């Protein structure tokens, strides 16, 4: 090739790709520029792939092209899943990313063995350990979210000990390989033990802990890719991996704060433990007041300001479109309607916002916990749909409650609280919610979709 050598062209494509990746995340900060961010990411990715294909060391293109085409064919349906299925899709894509990294790491070891420099062996082990535990862990998480696997956490005595023991063995074996990279018979252990660990890590985790787990797996996937960048001496990969790792880390910290779990608790995969036996609390004997759709509609129609608090139950009941109709009906009467969204509502960070945006609710009406909590004292009606523990005032007042200290939405400060719920049963964690027995609370028993639909009809009927 004449003029600029190919190596330089490749480096330039990588440099531009890196800049575009950072801009991509920067533009994602606001909904007005976010789509530009996706576009920047796409261009960066395309440049980097085209640049790589120009690499002179590549002697055979047949399998590369087949793999690229096949991957695209698999990728399209994964991009078209329903919005309710986004959490399991995300878990599955963490698994794919980790699979890629693990396979490349494994091949790199066998290509380089028996003489691998200690530093390379060290990061290679890290890449493979993080990659394989993320692979099986994410598959398990996806299985639980898709409800192929039981959602219920499975715990047994000494679970943490077994899990940490497994991880420790893998790390020790990796340490031996760093000192003696020629012991090739040990290498499969570095791949296989973390594969088992990934499964064991997710076994004790229940559905409500999934937002934290998905974020954590996201972080692991990023770190393993960064480790791969160290092995391959690719700055592009180190940077992309570091960005992904940082993103997963921030989300994990957010989620664990929102559930009042310590970060070490999260790091060691010890989820679900604290909630064991949480249901053993004393049974409430007080009675709750219930109301009909007509009464609920009348109270809503008389309000000036309404805050709707949606939880995962709303998504399960597929009620978001009816909720939009309610939003429209109330807004048309000049009532100020906002949504208060707890960080762990839904099955992954931000899931509830996506579901409500899909139902055409404007995003400036979706407020997170910190933004909405100051507004409840001026709110006439707080309407809770399919959320429970995130509204439980016991988290503020009752130090014996398992969720004590968890930040909650202060719905009890509103003038009237209405809760749409199937029955009086306790929430996911089996914790009694004193909110339901307050004088200002009205229980609206029924299926979320049907009940909201009934309120909407009442509002429309009363208006005409």
């Amino acid at each position: 090739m004449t003029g600029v050598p190919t190596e330089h062209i490749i480096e330039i494509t990588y440099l531009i790709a890196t800049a575009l990746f950072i801009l991509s995340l920067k533009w994602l900060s606001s909904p007005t520029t976010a789509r530009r961010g996706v576009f920047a990411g796409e261009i960066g990715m395309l440049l980097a792939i085209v640049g790589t294909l120009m690499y002179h060391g590549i002697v055979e293109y047949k399998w590369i092209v087949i793999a690229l085409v096949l991957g695209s064919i698999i990728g399209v349906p994964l991009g078209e899943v329903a919005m309710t299925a986004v959490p399991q899709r995300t878990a599955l894509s963490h698994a794919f990313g980790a699979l890629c990294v693990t396979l490349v790491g494994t091949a790199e070891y066998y290509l380089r063995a028996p003489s691998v420099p200690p530093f390379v062996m060290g990061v290679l082990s890290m890449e493979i350990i993080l990659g394989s535990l993320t692979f099986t862990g994410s598959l398990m998480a996806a299985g639980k979210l898709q409800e192929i696997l039981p959602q219920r956490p499975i715990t047994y005595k000494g679970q943490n000990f077994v899990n940490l023991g497994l991880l420790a063995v893998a790390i020790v074996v990796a340490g031996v390989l760093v000192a003696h990279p020629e012991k090739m018979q040990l290498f499969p252990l570095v791949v296989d033990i973390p594969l088992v660990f990934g499964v064991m890590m997710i076994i004790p985790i229940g559905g409500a802990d999934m937002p934290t787990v998905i974020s954590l797996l996201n972080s692991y996937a990023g770190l393993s890719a960064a480790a791969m960048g160290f092995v391959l001496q690719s700055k592009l990969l180190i940077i992309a991996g570091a960005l992904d790792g940082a993103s997963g880390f921030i989300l994990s910290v957010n989620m664990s704060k929102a559930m009042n779990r310590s970060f070490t608790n999260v790091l060691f995969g010890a989820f679900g433990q604290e909630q064991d036996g949480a249901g053993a609390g004393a049974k409430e004997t007080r009675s709750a007041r219930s109301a009909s759709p007509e009464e609920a509609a009348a109270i809503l129609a008389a309000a000036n300001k309404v805050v709707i608090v949606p939880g995962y139950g709303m998504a399960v009941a597929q009620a978001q479109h009816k909720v939009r109709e309610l939003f429209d009906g109330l807004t048309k009467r000049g009532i100020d309607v906002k949504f208060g969204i707890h960080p762990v509502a839904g099955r992954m960070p931000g899931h509830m916002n996506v579901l409500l945006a899909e139902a055409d609710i404007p995003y400036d009406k979706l407020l997170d916990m910190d933004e909405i909590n100051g507004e409840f004292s001026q709110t006439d009606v707080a309407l809770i749909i399919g959320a429970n523990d995130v509204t439980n005032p016991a988290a503020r007042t009752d130090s014996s409650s398992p969720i004590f200290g968890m930040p909650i939405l202060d719905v009890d400060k509103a003038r009237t609280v209405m809760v749409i719920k199937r029955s009086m049963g306790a929430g996911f964690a089996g914790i009694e919610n004193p909110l339901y027995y307050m004088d200002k609370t009205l229980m609206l028993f029924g299926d979320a979709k049907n009940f909201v639909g009934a309120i909407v009809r009442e509002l429309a009927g009363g208006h005409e």
Partner: protein
Amino acid sequence: MKLDLLTSVYVFMLAAFIGFEVIRRVSPLLHTPLMSLTNALDAIAVVGAIILAGESHQHGGRLAKILGTIAIVAATSNIVGGFLITDRMLRMFKASGPRKQ
């Protein structure tokens, strides 16, 4: 290729700081698209897989080709699926009122 460990560590550290600063500013509103976008970007690991599958190796070449090819499939599906779903989600986020700010 010359191993330049220290440079790699510097690059990682700086990228992590940039990552924290940039991602901290992403509103909780968009945390789901954030995760699917970073997931797509993370699949840049495909460049390593492409070289692995395409290069000729003295020994272990068959294994490298097989593993590299599967790795390309896995990463490419993340790239295509990740960008598609992120854009689909972001298209749904609309501000209220007829005018854009």
